[in-house]
């Protein structure tokens, strides 16, 4: 099942700072919902484990996260795919653009995600909502990470 969504957030930090955070594995780890580990395999590739919990469902996905089309400090594409065992698989990506605005940096994202296997077979009504929630959480967490860092500084 495939779905797409998009959104944007204005972050109170300069674009270079935001860009650096977008490339910081520790920040990414803290922002990916349910992320249990994120290990650097190369500067643009990570091995990731994330535990996804939605209501009664919980599934652990193991896979890779890649950073592609790097265009500092304007944006990149973050892409991942994971195997969730019985639950099936998930893959998806987001195009992230950073624009300078008077308040700081505007982050604009387009996400597309696809799942297969048991979750796709059984979870039809929930897939969109879950994907949206996870994207919102990721970028929400990211905004917080940028915000708190900035406030602390």
């Amino acid at each position: 099942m495939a779905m797409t969504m998009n959104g944007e957030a204005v972050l109170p930090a300069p674009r270079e700072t935001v860009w650096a955070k977008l490339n910081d594995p520790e920040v990414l780890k803290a922002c990916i919902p349910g992320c249990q580990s994120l290990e650097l395999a190369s500067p643009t590739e990570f091995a990731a484990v994330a535990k996804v919990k939605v209501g009664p469902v919980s599934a652990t996905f193991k896979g890779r996260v890649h950073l592609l089309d790097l265009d500092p400090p304007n944006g990149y594409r973050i892409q991942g795919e994971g195997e969730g065992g019985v639950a099936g698989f998930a893959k998806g990506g987001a195009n992230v653009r950073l624009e300078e605005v008077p308040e700081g940096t505007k982050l604009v994202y387009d996400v597309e995600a696809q799942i297969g296997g048991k979750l796709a077979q059984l979870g039809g009504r929930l897939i969109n909502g879950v994907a949206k929630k996870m994207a919102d959480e990721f970028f929400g967490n990211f905004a917080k990470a940028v915000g708190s860092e900035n406030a602390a500084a």
Partner: protein
Amino acid sequence: MTATGIGAPVRRREDFRFITGQGRYTDDIERPGQTYAYFLRSPHAHAAIRSIDAAAARATPGVLAVLTGDDLAADGVGGLICGWMIHSKDGTPMKAGAHPALAQGKVRYVGDHVAVVVAETLAIAKDAAEKIVVDYQVLAPVVDMNAAVKKGAPVIHDVAPDNVVYDWHLGDKAAADAAFAKAKHVTKIDLVNNRLVPNPMETRAAIGEYDGGSESFTLYTTSQNPHVARLVLSAFIGIAPEHKLRVIAPDVGGGFGSKIFIYAEETVCVWAAKKVGRPVKWTSDRTEAFLSDAHGRDHITHAELALDDKGRMLGLRVKTKANLGAYLSTFSSCVPTYLYAPLLSGQYDIPAIYCEVEGVYTNTAPVDAYRGAGRPEATFVVERIVEVAAREIGQDPAAFRKKNFIRKFPHQTPVIMAYDTGDYAASLDKALELIDYKNIGRRKRESARKGKMRGIGFSAYIEACGIAPSAAVGSLGAGVGLWESAEVRVNPVGTVEVLTGSHSHGQGHETTFAQLVCDRLGIPIDQVSIVHGDTDKVQFGMGTYGSRSGAVGMSAIAKALDKVIAKGKKVAAYALEASEADIEFKDGRFGVAGTDKSLAFGEVALQAYIAHKFSGQDLEPGLKEGAFYDPTNFTFPSGVHVCEVEIDPDTGVTRVDRWVAVDDFGVIINPMIVEGQVHGGIAQGVGQALLEGAHYDASGQLVTASYMDYCMPRADDLPSFKVDHTTTPCPSNPLGIKGCGEAGAIAAPPAVINAITDALGHEDVTMPATPQVVWRAARKAAFRTAAE
């Protein structure tokens, strides 16, 4: 008619065990030492398998084996087959891709079988399956039929580089084109016949067993045709020679076609039983059933009907794409061809018909016969285009049909079939009366006052049942002849065992077949037992599908009974010391004509076994006769179904308010059972029209893989039905039977859609006409009305 003879609504003899929980279905059977199989299935619609690492799974305590396609190949186990050869227009044979029971190198749909784990418990098997690491190279899938045949589409089987299985046709193209050239009016429609999942309530199950001492196998399985399963497993797949393989189909919880086929799981259970040296049991869960049972229907069709200035039909042209899924299932190739196009004449006198069918591979579950198999698809085309044509030329749809009905029999259609008998107008007239057609206008106005929209829809269907004359189907590409066998064993005490090659999985054969025996032999029904579903008991048979059990299976029994009576006369002649020519058999007694000397059937049976009075050379002892019956023609049940719906335009909810079915099934053995078959068929047809649809997303994931998303008809989705019949006995079999099992599923879908489109005033409604579909269509209707 006696209380238990032909025509009596005898209560079913099989029911006691079912209503008391004593039915014995495959999963109810527990074999000593049985192990459990669990299949690892592909989560991808299309992928190459680079490697399978099963070491961790094999090392799991309690695991007996993890087997893959490589193991199958190493043992020389053959692939699954498609038993009906179809040739394309250009004479080339259909392109059948290899179909291994466990994937070899590639998976082609979500649910395709990758490996099997055999373990002490199902839980252990599942745990171990999670440890198997499959390295997939994911390939682009193709799910949509139109996309599959486009240049550059992903190739599913190398033998079919354009994903076309066959490009087939039937009929006279030149004659059809000529008819259209002189037409005054041409009606054109585009239709989608939605993909369905059969969903018998009992899922498939199998227990394979191997006896090393006798080197023989036993397979307990949910089959509609255990002998065909044995034949295929033996002759084609090469599991064991036929005499070393016993297939038992015990109580089977519904089939609807989906249990005719020889599937991967059953095959693997038999093979694996020898490998692990223990019985191997597999029971499908419902999600597995959705993924891996053969689906039904799935056509895209464009059709055109040519009419003259008086509204008479001149010609019909039909072009269909049929989705056959990722592999050719056992009978899949014949369903959209010879079970479809020959029915396109419907009940109508159409001088010229031409039909083209393209069979297409996609990365979806295989598609094969499902209740009606080809005939519902044909009826949907015919009854939708006839309805639309009547509306376009402003004629009453009932009158338009009547005007075009075939009236003289036999009638040779332009598409193979020779209809033997029928009275289509009689069924229509009766249906119109039962639905109270003359007051439909008043009922529509009443609905409108409540803000609802009411519509009425007709479906005048015909089907070809009693499949099938062996010579006829042989000439069309069938791998086997479709006769049926019967054996009647009369015991010395006069009780009778009938062994039949038909198989009952809800049809009530233990009752109806016994009624025939009572009728013919004049003995009480409790002295008759019907034996079926075991290849060690019944020598051979073709099984139950295509509404053939009555017309073909019972005809074989009737033939064997005739032989029993003939032999009985000989026995009676010896016993009564009379000439055989003077022996008459009537009301269960053999008597000497013109005398009061007679013996009851049971007494003659005893004499046959005592044999004291025989001269051995003239007459063998015993009373047991067998027969093979090969029909001379198909049978042609027909009828008219009328559906009345009321639509809530605010929500799009369609309520089926009235249903009338008037069917001509020829001679009816048990009206109670026949009506039950009609009810069930209508429910499946209404399900197709309003509720059911298998839906794959663009990546090939089946998103309707449980009852959470696949909408099964429930009690409150349906009304009670008014079911009646007319009768023209079938002339081609000794009992006059036509067949009734599929009629409802064939007739219903166009009746529903015709009713909805009547209510809405336009034709733009697809199946399944879910609330959302109808809501949109109702809005379109409102815009049109506003614009007028």
